[in-house]
C-alpha cells in the first residue's frame, strides 16, 4: 500500500513546497523589506546633510548619528529627526565618516569624501574643531545642541535653505555677491535639483533583486552538487559513507565564501 501512495505524496510535497514559497515571496511585497538601514550624506555648501532610512524608504527616526574625523577622533554626535534627516556644520575640508546606530545591532556607515566640500573650508590641520576649544567654536556650530532636542534638526536645515535661497534670488537679477556667495547659491540650487533624482536612485536600489534571490538558491544547490561530487570522488566503496562524506562536504562548503 505504501509503495503505491508514496510517489503521489512526493510530487504533492514538491508542488506545495514550490507554490508555498512562491506565495510567500509574492505575499508581503517588496516595500515591506526593511530592517537593513541605509545612510546617505552629502555636502551642501559648508554643511553636511544626510538621511538614514530603512529598506523600503521608512525613515530611521531619532537614531544616533556619530561623525568621525579621518584620524578616528569623534567630531560630534547628533540624532536624526522625524524624517530621518540630520545635518552638521563641517569645520574642515576632510573626509567625514558618519555612522548611524539604531541600538539593536542594525547600523550603517558612510564616508563623505572631503573633495565634496567647498575649497573655502580650511584643511583639517588648521581647522578649529569644537572639541579643541568649546568656547571659540564658530558661531554656526549647531551640532552640539542637537542631541538633546531632535527638533532643531529640520528647522535649522530649512532656515539654512531659506537664507541661502534669499541671496540666490537677487543673484539672478543684478547684484552678484562675492564669489563665495555665488558658489554657495549654485551648490544649493544644484542640490535641490538633484534631490529627486537621488531619491529615485535610492528607491531603485531598494527594490528586491529577484535575480539575486534566485542566484542565492542556485548557489546553495550548486554547493550541494559540489558536495556530492567530492563525495563520489572520495568514496572508494559503496558502503564507506560514514566518515568520508564529512570531509568531502567540509571541503566543499568553504569555496563559496569569496
Amino acid at each position, binding site marked *: 500500500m505504501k509503495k503505491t501512495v508514496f510517489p503521489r*505524496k*512526493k510530487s*504533492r*510535497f514538491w508542488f*506545495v*513546497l514550490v507554490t508555498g*514559497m512562491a506565495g*510567500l*515571496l509574492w*505575499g*508581503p511585497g517588496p516595500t*515591506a*523589506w*526593511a*530592517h*537593513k538601514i541605509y545612510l546617505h550624506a552629502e555636502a551642501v555648501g559648508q554643511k553636511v546633510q544626510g538621511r538614514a532610512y*530603512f*529598506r*523600503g524608504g*521608512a525613515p530611521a527616526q531619532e537614531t544616533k548619528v556619530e561623525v568621525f574625523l579621518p584620524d578616528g577622533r569623534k567630531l560630534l554626535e547628533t540624532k536624526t529627526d522625524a524624517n530621518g534627516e540630520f545635518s552638521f556644520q563641517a569645520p574642515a575640508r576632510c573626509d567625514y565618516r558618519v*555612522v548611524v*546606530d*539604531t*541600538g*539593536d*545591532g*542594525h*547600523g*550603517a*556607515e558612510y564616508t563623505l569624501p572631503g573633495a565634496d566640500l567647498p575649497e573655502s573650508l580650511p584643511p583639517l590641520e588648521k581647522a578649529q574643531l569644537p572639541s579643541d576649544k568649546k568656547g571659540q567654536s564658530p558661531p554656526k556650530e549647531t551640532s552640539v545642541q542637537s542631541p538633546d532636542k531632535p527638533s532643531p534638526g529640520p528647522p535649522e536645515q530649512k532656515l539654512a535653505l531659506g537664507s541661502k535661497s534669499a541671496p540666490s534670488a537677487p543673484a539672478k537679477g543684478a547684484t552678484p555677491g562675492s564669489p563665495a556667495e555665488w558658489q554657495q547659491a549654485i551648490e544649493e540650487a544644484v542640490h535641490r535639483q538633484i534631490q529627486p533624482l537621488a531619491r529615485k536612485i535610492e528607491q531603485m536600489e531598494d527594490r*528586491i*533583486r529577484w535575480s*539575486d*534571490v534566485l*542566484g*542565492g*538558491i542556485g*548557489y*546553495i*544547490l550548486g*554547493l*550541494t552538487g559540489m*558536495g*556530492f561530487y567530492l*563525495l563520489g570522488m572520495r568514496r572508494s566503496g559503496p558502503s564507506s*559513507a*560514514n566518515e568520508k*562524506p*564529512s570531509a568531502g*562536504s*567540509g571541503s566543499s*562548503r568553504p569555496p*563559496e*565564501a569569496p
Partner: protein
Amino acid sequence: MHLSEAILAATPSGQIMLAGGILLAAGGVAIGLRRLEPADMPRTAILTSVFFVASLLHVQVMGTPVHLVLNGLLGLVLGWAAMPAVLVGLVLQAVLFAFGGLLAVGVNTVVMGLPAVVCYYLFRWATTGRYDGLAWAAGAAAGFIGVMLAALLAAGVLLLAGKPFYHVAQLVIPVQLPAACIDAVVTGAAVGFLRKVRPEVFRRSG
C-alpha cells in the same frame, strides 16, 4: 537579528566578539558537517534555501518590520547540520544583500545557529512522536524559542560589545517578540505539514 559588522567593529570588545563568533561558528559548522550524512544533503540544501529566503521576507508588525528566521525549523529537521546551513545562508545574504556584512557572519551564525541546535535537543522527540498535535506544538515552541534565544544571544553580544543595557533591552526584545510569534506559527504549520506529507524527514538522525 543580523548584527552589523559596522557596529561591532567600532569597539575593541566588539572586535573580540566578531573574532570569537568566527571561531565558535567554525567549531559548530565542523560538528554539523561531521554529522551530515550524504543522504541528508538535499534536505539540508532545501532548508538552507528556505532560511536564505525567509530572512528576506519582511512583515510589518505594529510599525516595526520583522522577518522570518525559521532557525527553529532548521534545528528540528537538520540538528547540528543547521549550523552549516545557517552559515551558507548568511554568507549569501551578506554577499548579495549586505545583511550584517561578511565579517559578522561568524557571530550571526552562532546567534542564529545555536538556538537551532538547542531546539533540536529540546523538541526533536515530539516531532518524531505519535501525536500530531504535540508535534505541532513542538514546532511552534521551537519557532518561538529559536527566535527569542537568538534575540537574547544578539542582545548579549551587543551588551558585551559595550552597548548600554536599557537601550539594547528596549530595542531587541519587544521587536523580536512578534517576530517570534510569527515564526512559531509558520514553524508549527511547517512541522505539521511535513509530518503529514513526508514523515521520514524527521526520522533520520541528523
